[in-house]
């Protein structure tokens, strides 16, 4: 077996080659760590294994309603520290057929003396139901702006597709309120909101 003798120039060339290769590998792995962030989102969206739903409106699939099955859809709403809002839903539970289009109204209430921006972030359980939940309209697609003491109603229009796995009898939708950092006065806030949407 031959390898460079370290007293010959071959050894330092070898060292240089090794160093360059390892540094390239290092840079690659650093980039890979950041690439994992969008990859993770794509992976979760494609497989639906993280209970994440689509962040934009989807069209209703016109299909025959499956009258043979009833699915219980539960709604859980949660506040969070840092946002003095309440999120309520008109009904905690509905029974629906797959294929049927349903509408449920949610109420946002800002119980503070200040106006703020907030957002309700959804999560679906069991997570393998999330691929079969189609949202036509959802307040969760965008940030909300509420004046002090303001109360608004926002609808959720959704459909469970017929190919929902048969073992799923109950689907739970959780909406958690989070503050959105727009630390500006209302008028300016609307301007910055436009920027935020672009970004």
């Amino acid at each position: 077996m031959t390898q460079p003798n370290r007293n010959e120039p071959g050894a330092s060339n070898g060292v240089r080659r090794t160093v360059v290769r390892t540094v390239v590998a290092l840079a690659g792995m650093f980039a890979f760590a950041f690439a994992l962030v969008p990859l993770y989102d794509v992976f979760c969206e494609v497989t639906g294994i993280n209970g994440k739903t689509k962040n934009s409106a989807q069209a209703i699939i016109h299909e025959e309603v499956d009258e043979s099955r009833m699915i219980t859809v539960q709604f859980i709403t949660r506040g969070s520290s840092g946002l003095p809002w309440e999120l309520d839903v008109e009904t905690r539970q509905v029974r629906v057929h797959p294929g049927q289009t349903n509408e449920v109204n949610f109420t946002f209430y800002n119980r503070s003396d200040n106006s703020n921006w907030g957002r309700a972030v959804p999560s679906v359980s069991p997570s393998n139901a999330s691929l079969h939940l189609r949202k036509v309209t959802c307040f969760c697609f965008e940030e909300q702006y509420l004046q002090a003491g303001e109360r608004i109603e926002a609808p959720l229009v959704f459909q469970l597709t017929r190919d929902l796995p048969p073992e799923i009898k109950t689907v739970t939708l959780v909406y958690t309120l989070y503050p959105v950092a727009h630390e500006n006065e209302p008028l300016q806030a609307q301007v910055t909101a436009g920027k935020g949407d672009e970004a």
Partner: protein
Amino acid sequence: MAFHFPKPTPQQNTTTADAGLADSHHHERPRGLMRWVLTTNHKEIGTLYLLFSLTMFFVGGIFALVVRAELFQPGLQLVEPEFFNQMTTMHGLIMVFGAVMPAFVGLANWMVPLQIGAPDMALPRLNNFSFWLLPVAFTLLLSTLIMPGGAPNFGWTFYAPLSTTYAPPSTTFFIFSLHLAGISSILGAINIIATILNLRAPGMRMMDMPLFVWTWLITAFLLIAVMPVLAGVITMMLMDINFGTSFFSAAGGGDPVLFQHLFWFFGHPEVYILILPAFGIVSAIIPTFARKRLFGYASMVYATASIAILSFLVWAHHMFAVGLPLVAELFFMYTTMLIAVPTGVKVFNWITTLFRGSITFEPPMLFALAFVVLFTIGGFSGLMLAIAPADFQYHDTYFVVAHFHYVLVPGAVFAIMAAVYYWLPKWTGHYPHERLAQVHFWLSVIGVNLTFFPMHFSGLAGMPRRIPDYALQFADFNMVSSLGALLYGTSQLVFVLVVIKCVRGGKKAPAKAWDGAEDLEWSVPSPAPLHTFETPPHFERPAH
């Protein structure tokens, strides 16, 4: 792909600023403190790493004793829960990044060039830099203890958003210190790879290398692969904390579970980084004191490589309770169990090496044998944890604490102790004091088992980790653990005494200090002179 660079070599590129100093190094050596600050000698840097690691071992040990003292009895006696959390966090971070990793890098610095017949590491000045990053990193980390809001308190795994949204302001310093420690490890790994691949003695093939060299080569590749991921994760944390991004914040569309995936994608290979060099050490010591060739050299190499590759496919077994889909639980359960196969090959080979050997029980052998037994116990509790449905019971209990301390303390730390006893004659020219070393060994073995064995039971009974207070039924187990920890901790002072005595004098060691030792390092005088193998040795393949 070929990379061509014009002259100056990379070393000169990276250190042009102190090129003048390096020149004087060759002509007249700096004396006193500056000798150690400016050294580019692999033996001196190895010594620096080992001394640094020993210091951190005691700092982290004191933090552990604070934790154990608080847990001595139920209720809150000594420290506030907030400070307790800082102690568990700092103990973990310092032991992993400050004690065990630098100890292995120090051993590699000392022994890899000697074992492959190289005159020094391939990149000596980089070597100096990668060492001196460490004191900076850990001074910074320790300084968070006196910052307003206290030190990091979110566990060594620093799960977001606990470590971002709810963390003390010192977290940014923690991130910076981890960046520095990470860069240090990366530079060390580059150096080790460059040395092993390019500076082997003429005639030494890859499959002729001692196993310590092999395991370190594979470890260095693991470091290259995962330390940048750690750097990426903590950079994302930094941006979440300071620059308003939302990588791990659900409020802004991020995902806290993503943090766990990224962290453990680094974290699981990291735990093998902490154990693979230990396998190499034990594979050197057992044949020496059994006076037999290592059984299954090639299978040892392949087993180490398989463990390293599998380590990238098992990360989510740390996350069984986070809400993974069933198919992921099954996948990670099976891949995790698969790791038991190459690990079993190793244990089998060590035992077969011992079989019908003429064994003597010098201090390094005592530690190596304790390693084989106690590491295997840790391996078995790891298999129990790998069973996904059972893990829902064990998750975040003291059973997990017992498991990883069994693989890290009588695993990695005992292997480091064994290595120090094994190579002290080569480093100092004196044998370590046999009787004192035996005292150290037995106190350590008893202390370790008293500390960590009861944790299996308290964990199975449901005692959660990282809690400063506990239910009354766990009182006895915890009292035993705390007494064991005190015994283990104080008995390490005996180790310091042995090392100091050995440096200052003792029974003179010949070049080949141990009867059955065969590798190249035993062909140079004891103590090894500052410069060795300036003309390459001729490597003779032992007859098979």
